[in-house]
C-alpha cells in the first residue's frame, strides 16, 4: 500500500510538473493578440500600448477597401484586404512612441490615417 501510494505520489508529481511546464512554456511563447480595425480614414484603436519584450500578434481587418498597415520602426507591414484577417507578429525591442500608418493611398483623408504604438518597460 505504502509503495503504491508512493508511486501514485510520484506519478502525480510528474504529471503536475508536466502540466506546469506546459503552462509555463505556453505563457512564454503565446503572443498577446490585439485586433485593429481600419476603415477610411482611421484605425480603431488608433493607440495601442505594448510591453517591451512581449511578443504580440496584430490582427488587422478592414471594413471597406484595401488598406495598408506600416509600422516602420519595427519593420512590420501588411496589406489589409476586405474579408480577410491580416496577421503580423513581432516583439517590441525598444520603448517609446511609434507611428503606424496606412501606406496604400486610399482617398482624401489618407494622409491622416495613422496611429501610435506605445512600448513601455
Amino acid at each position, binding site marked *: 500500500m505504502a509503495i503504491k501510494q508512493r508511486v501514485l505520489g510520484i506519478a502525480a508529481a510528474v504529471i503536475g510538473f508536466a502540466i506546469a511546464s506546459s503552462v509555463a512554456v505556453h505563457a512564454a511563447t503565446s503572443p498577446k493578440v490585439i485586433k485593429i480595425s481600419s476603415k477610411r480614414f482611421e484605425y480603431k484603436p488608433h493607440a495601442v500600448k505594448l510591453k517591451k519584450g512581449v511578443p504580440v500578434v496584430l490582427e488587422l481587418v478592414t471594413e471597406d477597401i484595401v488598406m*495598408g498597415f*506600416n509600422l*516602420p*520602426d519595427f519593420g512590420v507591414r501588411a*496589406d489589409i484586404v476586405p474579408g480577410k484577417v491580416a496577421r503580423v507578429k513581432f516583439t517590441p525591442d525598444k520603448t517609446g*512612441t*511609434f*507611428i503606424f*500608418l496606412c*501606406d*496604400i*493611398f*486610399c*482617398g*482624401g483623408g*489618407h*494622409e491622416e490615417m495613422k496611429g501610435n504604438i506605445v512600448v513601455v518597460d
Partner: protein
Amino acid sequence: MAKRIDRRDFLRLAGIGGVGVVFASALPGVARAHGDDDFYFLQLSDTHWGFEGAPNPDARGTLPKAIRSVNALEQRPDFIIFTGDLTHTTDNPVERRKRLSEFRQIVGQLEVKDLRFMPGEHDASLDNGKAFQEFFGATHYTFDHKGVHFIVIDNVSDPRAQIGEEQLAWLAADLKRQKADAPIVVFTHRPLFDLVPQWDWATRDGAKAIELLMPYKNVTVFYGHIHQEHHHMTGHIAHHAAKGLMFPLPAPGSQPNRAPLPWNAAEPYKGLGFRSVEAELGEARYEITEYPVQKA
C-alpha cells in the same frame, strides 16, 4: 543655338542677390568642353491645384503668381518639369478631371512651351494614373536634351507607392543603352530612398531603382512630395527635393505629425517657390537656384 549662360550672369538675372540658395551637385568623372551645350531648366512641384484651407488663403492665386515670376525671367529655361501633385486629391473622378483641366489651362500661360509633366499620388493613386494620362500622357518616359539623359520614374500610380517590376524592367533596359559615365537626371515624385517612412516619405521598392542607377557615375535625382528643399546622398547619387507651390511641410521627422506649416500673414508664401537647375556639363555639375513665388 542657345546662348551659353554664365553662372554669375545667371544669378544676376535670377535676381536672388543672397536671397536664394545655390546648391552645386557635382558630377565627378565628366570631362567635356565648357560651351554652348550648357542649359538650364525649371522644376515646379506640388502645386496641389484644388486645395482649399488655412495653410494657403491664396490657394488659387499662388500658382498664377509663380507663373508670372517664371515668365519674368530674362533668360528663358530650355524646359520646365512639374514633378507631381499637380492637383490636390479628390475622391470624385469628375472633379479630378476638372482640376487637371484647370491646371493645364493655367500652366498654358507659361511662355516656355516645352513643358514636362509627371503625376504625384494626389493626381494618380486613386485611379492608377488614368485621369492624368488623359491630360498629360505617359506617367514614365525618357527624353534627351543637350547630352543629358532624363528619366521620369512613376512611383505613384500604384497606390502602394511602388515603381513595380514592369517599370523597373523598363528602367533597366533603358539604362543598358547608356554609357557608364553618361549624365543622367532622374525625376520622381516620391523620394526613392527612405527619407521618413513614418510620414510616407519613401518608395516601397525605391531601393531597387537606386540599385539599377548605382553603376552609373553621373546620376542626379530631382523629386517633390515633401514640399521643401532637401538634399541627400545615396552613395554618389544626389537627391534634391523641391519646394512646393501650395503649402510647406515640416522638416523631415521634426515633429510627430506631417501637418502643413501654418500660413504666416507677415511672410506670405514663405517656404513656397520653384527652382532652376543649370546644367554645366563642361564643369561637370548642376547648380540649383531657389526662387520665391514672387519677388519681395
